[in-house]
């Protein structure tokens, strides 16, 4: 059996769903950020797979993947810095306790 486009797409859809589940169910900010990272990486698999298996002439998909990796890293770096600030403010990084503002 050879690995084709469908296998890659299934893998990336599963990763995306797992990441979304992580974002919605986890209570720790770091774990939520890990979920976000999984979702972004699912996208990268999609881009590279489409570029490899569909008849396109250029490398746009790989280019998009490179940019998506860069942006994902920047986002998660800021997320970790903010988690550190939340910890300094409240001695916890549980998202359920971020409830100062309501309405």
């Amino acid at each position, binding site marked *: 059996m050879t690995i084709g486009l469908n296998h890659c797409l299934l893998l990336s859809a599963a990763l*995306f769903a797992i*990441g*979304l589940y992580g*974002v919605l169910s986890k209570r720790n*900010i770091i774990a*939520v*950020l890990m979920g*976000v990272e999984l*979702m*972004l990486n*699912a*996208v990268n698999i*999609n*881009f590279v797979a*489409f570029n490899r298996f*569909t*008849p*396109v002439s250029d490398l*746009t*998909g790989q*280019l*998009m993947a490179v*940019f*998506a990796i860069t*942006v994902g890293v*920047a*986002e998660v770096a*800021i*997320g970790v810095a*903010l*988690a550190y*600030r*939340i910890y300094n*403010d*409240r001695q916890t990084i549980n*998202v359920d306790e*971020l409830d*100062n*503002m309501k*309405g």
Partner: protein
Amino acid sequence: MNFGAISTEIFILVLGLFAIVMDLILPKEESRKSIGGVLIFGLTAWAAYMFTMYVPQAIIAGGESGTRYFSDMMYVVDNYAIFFKQLFIVATVFTMLFSVDYMQTVLRYKGEFYALLMMALLGMCVLASANDFLTAFIGLELMTISFYILVGARISSKNSSEAAVKYLIVGSVSTAIMLYGISLVYGATGSVQFYDMLRNPYLFSATGLAGATMVMIGFFFKLSVIPFHMWAPDVYQGAPTPITAMLAMGSKAAGIAVLMRVLYVAFPLIGFYWLPILAVLSAICMIGGNIMAIRQRDVKRMLAYSSIAQAGYMMVGIVSADFAGMKAVMFYGMLYVFANVGAFTALSLVEQHRGGSDYRDIAGLAKTAPIMAAHDFRILLFAGSQGYVSGRGQ
């Protein structure tokens, strides 16, 4: 490579780098107001100069498009983009003008504030002239990542970091959804360029339609259209007031600019099916946003719900899908910037002097500062009537 086409972006980038370098060079005890002054001067001059960039009506009527491209159609500079860029620059200049004192008292890192504001402005300008999903994605991220930091810039306030984390998590999930959509559209059509998509029949496959839907959902998150609006009130309340103003004016107008281009240029045929959905969503936004604004106790929160309603007003113009509708949206965006500048200027002054933006802090404003109270009241009235005015304009 036509570098003249991206002169605005180069200029803004240079100003941002200038702010970073000057922040390092200036001695610690020196005030950072001077950097803001230079940036305000430069941006105002450039916004005035941009009037010469418009392609005159006579040339367009003569059959030439007059549109300039950069880097193989990835980046388009037409009158539409120039108008929105001017709007963003004006919004940033106003924000900096009324935030000079506020920033000196509230923020710990003042130089970085200006640099990040320039980067956010650069992202908005890239968004306004993106002609490619890659460029649009980079512009969107440049803008939102700068805003994540700016929203959390008030180190002394617990609300600020809470708002920043909420914005970051919702924003990055919506980015991931939108990117997944872009990847599906790319898989269906083999291209990420708007003009290629327009002619591509494969966009109507299951993959392409699913991708287009996810892209639209990503935009709805960024515009805080009602089913996807949960982040907006918290973020608006927690952010420093000038940043709330920038979020309400610049971020929303940039989202509208790129949404119109995507709908009309990349997905015009799918967009036809989207218009009824957009119409329903805009009605929900207009009604729901205004009703929920009534029961808020914090004025910034109230303005957040009001801005959700304003997004609904702007979407009415998009739904009409003709030149008059687009013109109305652009005119409305301009009015919206000027109305919001007034509201947020008054609010940041109140917050600076009384320490909060709750109703209790505003109470008695008519006695201590009658002129400002009258001005505030007039602005709020204007925010209500503006939808009617630009509706008539259309």
